[in-house]
């Protein structure tokens, strides 16, 4: 598997900063906005954004984690059932502005499930989508992100991996591909 760095750690930090300022531009002081990370990998984007936003704004921001396992459209179409992660939404989302957060937007199916899962908690005023990486031209559903860290044009055979300091040791985004796949 060959690797190509799409974002190095410096660019990664700049991207997070830019996303934070874009969010502030729209949501102001976040008094009626809630950030919700999609399990499992969206949580890391959320943690980083929350940390940075709280630094800039000097106040706490309401955040939650959402697990979408039971709302997926590929139950029984996979080899194994997917074991769910925890959902952590201990507040009302009624009439709030929600920003759903994930690491990579690809087919859009995860986000579709995420919307269903979210609506089980109530009726938000507005739902937006933030994604670290947007693999455009690869959508199976008509879903687009409102905030994008970086847009990537990629082949189906390729993979995009967002890596985190906390887990993999360094913040970076990689494009993974095999030479045959691209040949």
């Amino acid at each position, binding site marked *: 598997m060959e690797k190509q760095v799409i974002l190095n750690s410096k660019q990664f930090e700049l991207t997070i900063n830019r996303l934070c300022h874009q969010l502030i531009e729209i949501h102001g002081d976040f008094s009626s906005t809630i950030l919700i990370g999609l399990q499992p990998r969206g949580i890391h984007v959320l943690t980083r954004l929350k940390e940075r936003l709280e630094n800039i704004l000097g106040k706490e921001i309401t955040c939650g984690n959402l697990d979408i396992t039971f709302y997926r459209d590929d*139950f029984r179409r996979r080899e194994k059932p997917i074991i769910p992660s925890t959902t952590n939404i201990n507040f009302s989302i009624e009439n709030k502005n929600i920003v759903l957060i994930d690491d990579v937007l690809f087919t859009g199916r995860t986000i579709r499930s995420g919307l269903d899962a979210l609506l089980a908690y109530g009726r938000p005023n507005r739902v937006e989508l933030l994604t670290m990486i947007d693999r455009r031209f690869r959508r199976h559903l008509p879903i687009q992100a409102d905030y994008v860290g970086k847009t990537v044009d990629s082949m189906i055979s390729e993979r995009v991996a967002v890596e985190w300091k906390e887990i993999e040791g360094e913040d970076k985004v990689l494009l993974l591909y095999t030479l045959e796949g691209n040949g």
Partner: protein
Amino acid sequence: MDNLSVEHLIGIRDLTKADIELIFSTADNFKQVINRPIKKVPSLRDITIANLFFENSTRTKLSFELAEKRLSADVINFSASGSSVSKGETLVDTVNNILSMKVDMVVMRHPNPGAAKFLSDRIGAKVVNAGDGTHEHPTQALLDAFTIREKFGSVEGKKVVIVGDILHSRVALSNILCLQKLGAEVMVCGPTTLIPKHIDKLGVKVSHNLRHALEWCDVANMLRIQLERQDIKYFPSLREYSMLFGLNKEILNSLSKEIVVMHPGPINRGVEITSDVADSKQSLILQQVENGVAIRMAVIYLLAAKIERQ
């Protein structure tokens, strides 16, 4: 471990410890789901489940039906009373007729021990045993152990006494097997006539003295006297049974430590347990009922994951 090792849930005997732990961790998630404003997930949209109850039931039937509906499965219900069973149809015929209506899973309660196994060997659908005679009642044992785990953080090392009609109880057998697989110590307690001979071969302690048993345990699981299954008189009178083996507040308060009390229902108030105990803060009876739905959702979800798509 992300898949059950069994194709059907016939009894706890067939499950591994890892299976039980997988069911518990899945049930944790479903417990969250049933405490949300919208208590439903769409996972089983394309699954049809038949609930076949050849024996009376309130709690188990409602609990299974609710679990199925909260997973968005289509549900059909059948009770033996008022059906063609009374016209002489055999079990396999009844079930095959129901299966030709394209049913993917069968939840069955039946008065004959082994009925669930018999069925699972003969039909293509997944079978969940909701109680077969005096044999097993696996989902009850799972929800009991799940409730103990929730209360104490773990089942391992806990001491559980099962009091009452052990001889006729499928709940007792399933509970013994489940608790032992999870590392708990089990004692059974009751009149000599209602304790099966050789039950100590299962590795359980036996006592005929309620106070002695209660002093030993962390959890007391009180069972009902199953008069409907008793062909002869096993003890002189319910009054005497209740005096010797009934749990009342007086005994509970006189113990050297605080224990918790469970009951699989239906309760015969004033016989095996008095009202003030059943409704006390030491009682986990209503938590058991709540956890029953989550456990059954988990079992159905994990078995449904093994149904092949056409």
